């Protein structure tokens, strides 16, 4: 599996998990709020902050229930660029969902380094091809889709000459329930598509994100807001900055926990051997001349270690040349 580089950071096996703070449309069209979100996201340890970009008239028909909202969400090219530049200043990558061709054009123009395609577009070869031709990494949100549809989307993108694909597993509902997560699918995707796979987490807590890391996710996308109580948009499963920071910290800790697959006792464990493994001692006061047996020899903890239970056969049946007191270590010097 080849890693995919998102704005200079590789996403793939053995790489640190890539965390995206999904601002979505939580700014409600207020550029100041969007700017605050970028600034807040930069304090969480997330690798990237993401919004959704659409051109209302290219994206939906006026009769569609959210059309008017889409109109209100519109930012100018300069406003998008300001967000992206602010993110760069603060050292966090900036990316967007491109929901229609004009949004692709806009973000190519301002140099947004990678895009995500919404699950709703995985069966839309026109937008897939168009975004693929922008020649930058694409995250594919695979909610709602089947394996065959994901294959179709990948084929559309690769046929356009773009191999930089990261799949995001995730259930498309707000919020998602734990029972809807099916994190084992992450491995399924990795096996059948041989590409980096992440998790799009729409649950309200961080259990799935952490478990997702354990299940092999190489990226995590989680909704982000500066003010959940404001209930703007996409707030239901969003974390506030402090919560998001905690999740990122927990993810980094979980990553550390994953460690190495080879079973090798650590230096600390080896030290524990010294105090918890057992040594052969006299079970009772043993006079000189006693033949050592399993009955009169006990295996007990003591420090420092003496002859251990594995080497008991080398002293059983031997005669003591001197008396050994109860609980005293049995040594080769005690034997004939």
């Amino acid at each position, binding site marked *: 599996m080849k890693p995919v580089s998102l704005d200079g950071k590789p996403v793939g096996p053995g790489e640190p998990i890539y965390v995206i703070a999904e601002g979505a449309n939580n700014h409600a069209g207020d550029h100041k709020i969007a700017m605050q979100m970028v600034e807040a996201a930069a304090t969480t340890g997330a690798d990237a902050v993401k919004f959704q970009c659409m051109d209302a008239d290219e994206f939906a028909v006026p009769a569609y229930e959210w059309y008017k909202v889409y109109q209100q969400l519109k930012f100018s090219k300069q406003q998008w660029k300001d967000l992206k530049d602010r993110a760069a200043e603060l050292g966090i990558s900036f990316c967007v969902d491109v929901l229609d061709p004009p949004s692709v054009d806009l973000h190519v123009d301002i140099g947004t380094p990678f895009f995500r395609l919404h699950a709703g577009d995985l069966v839309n070869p026109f937008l897939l091809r168009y975004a693929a031709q922008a020649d930058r990494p694409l995250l594919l949100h695979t909610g709602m889709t089947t394996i065959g549809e994901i*294959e179709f989307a990948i*084929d559309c993108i690769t046929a356009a000459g773009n191999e930089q694909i990261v799949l995001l597993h995730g259930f498309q509902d707000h919020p998602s329930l734990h029972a809807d997560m099916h994190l084992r699918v992450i491995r399924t995707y990795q*096996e*059948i*598509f*041989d590409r980096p796979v992440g998790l799009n987490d729409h649950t309200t807590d961080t259990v799935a994100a952490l478990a997702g890391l354990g299940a092999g996710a190489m990226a995590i996308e989680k909704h982000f807001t500066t003010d959940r109580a404001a209930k703007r948009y996409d707030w239901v499963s969003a974390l506030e900055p402090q919560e998001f920071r905690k999740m990122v910290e927990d993810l980094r800790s979980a990553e550390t926990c994953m460690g190495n*697959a*080879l*079973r090798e006792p650590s230096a600390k464990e080896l030290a524990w051997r010294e105090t918890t493994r057992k040594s052969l001692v006299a079970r009772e006061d043993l006079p000189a001349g006693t033949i050592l047996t399993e009955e009169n020899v006990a295996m007990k903890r003591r420090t420092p270690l003496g002859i251990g239970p594995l080497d008991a056969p080398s002293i059983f049946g031997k005669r003591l040349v001197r008396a050994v007191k109860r609980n005293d270590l049995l040594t080769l010097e005690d034997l004939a």
Partner: protein
Amino acid sequence: MLRPVVQVGGKSIGDGHPFFVIAEASSNHNRDMKTALGLIDAAAAAGADAVKFQAFTADKIVARMREKHPYIEHMFPHAGSMHEVYASMELPREWLKDLKAYSDERGLIFLCTPFDEEAVDLLESLGMAAYKIASYELWHLPLIRHAARTGKPLLISTGMGNLQAIEEALGAVAAEGNEQAALFHCAINYPPPFTELNLRAIRTMKTAFGVPVGYSDHSTGITAAIATVALGGNLFEKHFTLSASMPGPDHPFSIEPEGLAALVRGVRECEQALGSPIKRMLESERAGYLMGRRSIFAAADIPAGARITREMLAILRPGTGLEPKHLDKVIGRRAATDIRAQDPITWEKIA
């Protein structure tokens, strides 16, 4: 820390590298130089990566006692002792230099299993690329340590071994500061039945130890070799002989030159055949065999403007047109043009 890939004679052994095949001549030279050279020729002709002999001496391998291993008893009913049997099979050590030179000439990596420390020293002076440790010596930690100190990779067979024995052997290698060891899973028995091969243990050993793992094969034929490749194994060792009917304990279960060539061919074919995990139509299939799939055709003449019914359509070869899954989208629409019977239906012909 042992490495996931080891370097033997300029070749890398491990995941992502070509499968490494060792033709094991063992004692099948029958102490005849011409036979020994013939074995090297056969290994080279078969395309093996390496040829291997064994360096033991009766005095250093076995106590002088009367008991004989049942297999040896069966093979050598008249021998007085195991010592006598080993003595009769010793590879004259003065041959090693010439055998190695001949292997080098034939482009084969020359390997030889040392069964005592002196053998290691002698082989080291001849410039070995690696040392094989026989299954029986998995518990001979002093020998393993001595071989490990050469700094050359150790290729360790593990017949009869469990994880603990392997762990202790690998620990001995690592403790000498040697980071290169590969393992062979192995079922001893001459030959073992296929039910005793337990080739899945190759995966177990890879997971447990993180080093290259292969199979050292005493079974008959080439099945185990192909399966080892398919299971993700990295190396393989096969006993071979110029003729299975020659006298000696290893001949009966050894493969003959033709079989060895078939084994190497099979291994290389299997490596290629494993290919990519991605399930897709190949370009060669698209070019050559789309003709065999089906498309939607006109079953009768359809005049322009006519509303198309199921009866007007047939699903026929070739598969270069509209896929059959579109049938229900075609039915009920009007013909944009006159469509003749047996013509393919295309969206252009539909209003």
